[in-house]
């Protein structure tokens, strides 16, 4: 008898929670394929290390990038491998709950559940990321109060107001921390004339990136390929110029939070001032982002103590209380 599973199929990271056990898998959502034969060569951390460093016949991709399922076949293979790795076989058929972006289309929804069923799940259901995040962040969503959660991931940013176990207001954009990496890549190419890979851009973001000025800022030395000469070249980047480079992405994330606040009923708006909003997701770890949201909305922002795990822990809670909570699945709303 297989143990039921909760999966956070994130655009950047995949986490699996096993009923009664906790988190059993946590790795990048990357798959490496042989371009000619289509065979899977590696997944997870191993595949992540190959990004931008593969010979022509290998391609290492993030199939869920952009918060959309761009390649159904690869996504299905990823889900299949994932389930195999946590011990699902044809004979052990667990129930599976998968967290997906709330903006997912009907076609994508069906693709994910069908893929999970074909990969051996006895039943597959979906739950919106912000709902799972609110449960995982331990917010009192059973009460008639306004709980606001902001989940900034790699490919999506979702803000939701939740009360009495249901979503009251929602704002989701397909913009996330990957877009910050891309903005850094473009900026360095344009202003410094060097090409850098996406992993380097991510490292720059983590090392010196910020959404608002913060104390103790430092510069970073970056190496890439000179676009003119083709030779390796080093440049120094300052925190101010990275802030400038990523401003458009940051402001579109902040605007979506503001739009969600504007959608909330006034009775619940009062609650935010007292209770604050909760920030989860890896993208929320960007320096100065909480401060920036707070400055622009005048609402206190609190950081979850498990930003990267909140979503899968919330879905794990649903798996632990499956019968009572099955009304929360996408498409099961009364």
């Amino acid at each position: 008898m297989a143990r039921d599973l909760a999966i956070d199929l994130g655009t950047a990271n995949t986490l699996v929670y096993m009923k009664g056990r906790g988190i059993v898998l946590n790795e990048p959502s990357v798959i490496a394929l042989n371009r000619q034969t289509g065979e899977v060569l590696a997944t997870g951390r191993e595949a992540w290390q190959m990004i931008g460093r593969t010979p022509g016949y290998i391609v290492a991709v993030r199939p869920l990038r952009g918060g959309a399922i761009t390649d159904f076949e690869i996504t299905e293979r990823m889900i299949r491998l994932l389930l195999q790795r946590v011990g699902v076989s044809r004979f052990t058929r667990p129930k599976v709950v998968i967290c997906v972006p709330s903006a997912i289309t009907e076609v994508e929804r069906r693709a994910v559940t069908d893929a999970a069923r074909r990969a051996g799940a006895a039943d597959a259901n979906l739950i919106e990321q912000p709902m799972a995040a609110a449960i995982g962040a331990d917010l009192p969503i059973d009460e008639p109060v306004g709980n606001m959660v902001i989940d900034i991931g790699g490919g999506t940013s979702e803000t939701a107001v939740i009360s009495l176990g249901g979503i009251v207001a929602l704002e989701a954009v397909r913009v996330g921390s990957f877009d910050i990496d891309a903005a850094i890549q473009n900026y360095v190419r344009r202003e410094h004339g060097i090409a850098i890979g996406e992993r380097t851009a991510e490292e720059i973001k983590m090392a010196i990136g910020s959404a608002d000025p913060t104390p103790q800022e430092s510069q970073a030395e970056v190496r890439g390929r000179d676009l003119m000469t083709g030779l390796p070249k080093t440049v120094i980047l300052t925190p101010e110029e990275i802030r400038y480079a990523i401003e458009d992405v940051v402001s579109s994330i902040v605007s979506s939070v503001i739009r969600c606040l504007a959608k909330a009923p006034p009775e619940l708006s009062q609650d935010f001032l007292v209770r604050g909003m909760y920030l989860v997701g890896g993208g929320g770890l960007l320096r100065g982002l909480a401060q920036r949201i707070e400055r622009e909305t005048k609402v206190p922002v609190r950081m979850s103590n498990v930003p990267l795990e909140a979503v899968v822990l919330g879905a794990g809670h649903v798996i632990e209380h499956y019968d009572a909570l099955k009304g929360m699945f996408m498409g099961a709303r009364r």
Partner: protein
Amino acid sequence: MIWVIVVAVAVLALVTVVVARRNRSPQSSVDSFRRQIDALGPAARRTVVDQVQTAAGREPDPDVRQADERRAEPDDEDGPRGA
């Protein structure tokens, strides 16, 4: 003749099911809503809270450590370094 009886029985069964559902649904919807709210309450959330505490006091993630080590490597090909 037999068809008339079969149809009558089928209609009767259908009506019974519909009526039973209609009568039962308010109570069962109240029950299932209560169960859902209870399952989201602080007592039920305890398992997750325990998980959260274990996760918060966890060992550093191998991925994070790798990234840190990589950043510290002096002869990295293309990584950024504090200057």
